[in-house]
């Protein structure tokens, strides 16, 4: 051993299981962050091959990147918790060794450096393995998602992006070092004599009643507030997202405050439900080392909460928010003709460019001839005007002839401010736009105001002709300044059969055109709604696949907690074996304790997750896309949609916890009682 850092290396090597757990945690965190970005990148790559599809799905893609990054960060935090636990345990076990070294003259600084060197070594190995593993993981996840996703999304090349790799590596190392800082400080600050003494056994700690009451009041107050006075009824862009984030943060703070009390209550309930020595000892252990039990339960609960909240939000977004904008057209048997065969997938037009989805002159003429007199219709040009984009800056807007638009009416647009009588003259006189309240708020304009937007050959002044909801949230621009916005033909014709027309018969006549024009496709709006739903399902599948990995990190955390818990109670376990507890009884105590943590984590995660869905829907609301609706039934329906996932999580959490506890239980119960007692 040439320097004090040799101590670090030797200790890591001597405690290989713990070192491997830490490396695995960092590796998983880094790999999930990078592979999440690979999936988003691959989907983006597939879509970018077609400009038309890019504008159509810009919103989805805009959501994908931060969501994947968020999930990667959740895994990173779980990894941080694991490393914190591992080093906490390492320091506890080495208390006397560190005391001895301090007595021999190791300074506080040297102690800190040895422990930080250990962490750095683990971090570097974990990050390196994580980067390598991410390539495999990314490909495996894409292969897993593909069967669900290929109807809607084509996958391009998947390769790790350098900035993301650097970000993940830096975060991995940073979280490792930060996780170790506290235990290292504790070890370095302990007086040598204190460290040399036998540590006292942990006692049952009573829950802080004030904290429990505060948490209960906070959560009950938040729920009562959003249910009785939903902020979603008045809030609009740009306040909607920050306000939702604030309320969710308060909700999470409430969960954190309440959780120790819930654990204490559950332990007492468990003691009543499980009389006898094993039940008693098992539940008593949950009320000791509260910090560690709390962190474990919190990890499980938080993983489940995030899964439920994402599922509930997707339900809200697809079926009650943007998806609901299709309802008016759907109810009136609307259909559209384009070159996009949405029902059978985007795949075939990908790679052929924008021209391939633009309807040709002869196709348009033939189509208009068929529908004229039987239906109202609009010729929809897809244009990208950054100022009018619903999501980000690249979402499409429709450019439509105002007179034709009036013919289809609320199948295309529903007013929340203004009406057709005032809007039409404005739209016919120049560039008039019908926008969602979110777009108006972002540009700080209201009804009748002028908004300067980016045209093809320079700025273009447009007047806000109305505020409300359009199909898929896109802005509608009058086509009076056609050349300023596009030089292409329409890409979609929306057709609304008249009351005296049989929609099926009209559809058959349009279908007959395919003999002369094989490129055109007819799609019912109701089919498009299903396709949109499917696209949301893909994102859900991707999220859930990533969250399964987050659960793995949580499971590592439980393994580690149980290792630590068993390690600290070695003497007690040895004593119980000595006075006659069988291996099976001890296994029941150790695994039962983990199952109990899993059940509490699952129940809290389920309840807090469902609450989070209600809070998101009732706080975010629908104002930003111009919809008016009673939010509570929508919130309940969104929560209900996440219920199945929640129940799956509720069952999975104790199973994961039990599997995680099996390893430490097996390890300690292989020893004879005297080995267990002697190793304390």
């Amino acid at each position: 051993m040439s320097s004090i850092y040799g101590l670090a290396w030797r200790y890591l090597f001597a405690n290989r299981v713990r070192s491997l757990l830490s490396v695995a945690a960092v590796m998983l965190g880094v790999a999930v962050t990078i592979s999440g970005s690979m999936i988003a990148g691959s989907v983006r790559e597939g879509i970018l091959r077609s400009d038309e599809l890019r504008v159509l799905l810009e919103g989805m893609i805009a959501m994908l990147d931060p969501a994947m990054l968020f999930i990667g960060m959740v895994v990173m935090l779980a990894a941080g918790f694991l490393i914190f636990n591992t080093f906490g345990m390492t320091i506890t076990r080495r208390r006397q060794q560190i005391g001895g070294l301090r007595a021999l003259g190791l300074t506080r600084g040297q102690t800190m450096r040895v422990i930080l060197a250990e962490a750095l070594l683990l971090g570097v190995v974990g990050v390196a393995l994580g980067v390598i593993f991410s390539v495999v993981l990314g490909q495996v996840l894409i292969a897993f998602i593909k069967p669900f996703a290929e109807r809607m999304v084509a996958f391009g090349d998947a390769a790790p992006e350098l900035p993301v790799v650097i970000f993940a590596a830096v975060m991995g190392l940073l979280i490792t070092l930060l996780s170790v800082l506290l235990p290292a400080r504790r070890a370095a600050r302990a007086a040598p004599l204190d460290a040399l003494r036998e540590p006292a056994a942990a006692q049952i700690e009573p829950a802080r009643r004030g904290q429990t009451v505060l948490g209960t009041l906070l959560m009950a107050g938040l729920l009562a507030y959003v249910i009785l006075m939903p902020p979603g009824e008045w809030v609009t862009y740009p306040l909607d997202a920050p306000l939702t984030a604030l309320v969710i943060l308060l909700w999470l703070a409430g969960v954190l405050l309440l959780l120790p009390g819930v654990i204490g209550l559950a332990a007492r309930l468990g003691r009543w439900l499980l009389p006898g020595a094993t039940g008693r000892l098992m539940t008593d252990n949950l009320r000791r080392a509260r910090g560690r039990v709390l962190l474990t339960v919190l990890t499980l609960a938080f993983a489940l909460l995030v899964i439920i909240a994402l599922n509930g939000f997707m339900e809200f977004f697809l079926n009650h928010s943007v998806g609901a904008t299709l309802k008016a057209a759907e109810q009136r048997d609307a259909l559209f003709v384009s070159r996009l065969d949405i029902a059978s997938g985007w795949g075939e037009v990908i790679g052929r460019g924008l021209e391939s989805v633009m309807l040709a002159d002869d196709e348009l003429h033939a189509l208009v001839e068929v529908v004229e007199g039987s239906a109202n219709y609009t010729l929809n040009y897809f244009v990208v005007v950054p100022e009018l984009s619903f999501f980000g800056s690249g979402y499409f807007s429709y450019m439509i002839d105002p007179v034709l638009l009036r013919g289809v009416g609320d199948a295309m647009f529903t007013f929340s401010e203004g009406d057709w009588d005032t809007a039409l003259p404005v739209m016919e006189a120049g560039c008039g736009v019908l926008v969602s309240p979110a777009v108006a708020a972002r540009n700080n304009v209201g009804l009748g105001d002028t908004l300067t937007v980016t045209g093809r050959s320079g700025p273009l002044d447009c007047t806000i002709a109305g505020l409300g909801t359009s199909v898929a949230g896109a802005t509608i621009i009058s086509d009076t300044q056609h050349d300023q916005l596009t030089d292409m033909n329409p890409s979609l014709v929306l057709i609304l059969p008249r009351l005296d027309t049989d929609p099926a018969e009209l559809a058959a006549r349009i279908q007959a055109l395919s003999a002369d024009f094989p490129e055109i496709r007819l799609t019912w709006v109701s089919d498009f709604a299903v396709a949109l739903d499917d696209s949301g399902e893909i994102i859900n599948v991707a999220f859930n696949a990533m969250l399964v990995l987050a659960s793995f990190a949580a499971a590592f955390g439980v393994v580690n907690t149980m290792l630590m818990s068993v390690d600290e109670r070695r003497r007690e376990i040895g004593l119980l074996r000595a006075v006659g507890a069988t291996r099976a009884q001890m296994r029941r105590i150790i695994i039962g304790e983990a199952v109990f943590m899993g059940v509490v984590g699952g129940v809290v995660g389920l309840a807090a997750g469902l609450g989070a869905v209600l809070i998101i829907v009732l706080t975010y609301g629908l104002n930003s896309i111009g919809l008016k609706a009673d939010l509570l039934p929508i919130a309940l329906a969104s929560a209900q949609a996440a219920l199945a996932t929640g129940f799956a999580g509720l069952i999975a959490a104790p199973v994961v916890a039990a599997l995680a506890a099996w390893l430490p239980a097996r390890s300690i119960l292989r020893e004879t009682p005297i080995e267990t007692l002697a190793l304390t």
Partner: protein
Amino acid sequence: MAVVIETRSLRKQYHLGDVTVEALRGVDFAAAQGEFVAIMGPSGSGKSTLLHLLGGLDSASGGDVLLDGRSYTQMSDDELTITRRRQIGFIFQFFNLLPTLTAAENVALPLTIDGQHPNPSHIMSLLEQVGLADRKDHKPHQLSGGQQQRVAIARALVARPKIVLADEPTGNLDSQSGQAVLDLLRRASREQGQTMVMVTHDHRAAASADRVVFLKDGQTVNMVSLDDTGGKTRTQTVAAVMTEVGL
């Protein structure tokens, strides 16, 4: 008196890296019902190892232990555990009480592990015998070392075991508390007919026993009965034998 526990050519080896340590080299030992036996010897003589093997806490490398004629080597792990639970009481040097349980709950532990509902009057009578009836609801950290050891003694006696094994039970106590503990053990062996086997390195503690067995280098080197000490005090007798065997 009938033999309760005996060993036959008991051997125990430990492997420390490449080195094999012979902790016991073929020990033959026996204790009769109601007998109080002390085992003495220097550090590393194998006295604690012998006690652990008598209690079935560790497995022998050779030979056998028989409790009431039943061989440990013929028992499964569960059978041995249940034997420990019902027929053997343990007292350790470091008290070893469970910190989350009260004194009364610690005493009752072997019975609750056995699925029994301990009779509160039985637990109270044991606590009274060890002088801790007024401390029954105290947790271990609220008790002194001597009090904790007395709780451990009550726990060792609660299942009315055939044999009680005590490993340096007075090693961590002041002389007054230590004497109280020895008196308790003696009384239990006399009044309840329980066999006591106590490991100690203190000749004054050993003097409380009926018989003292001396171990050295993993072998029995001497044995002395304290029933008739020929005019010497029991302590003097033990000290004399210690000198004789070079302890």
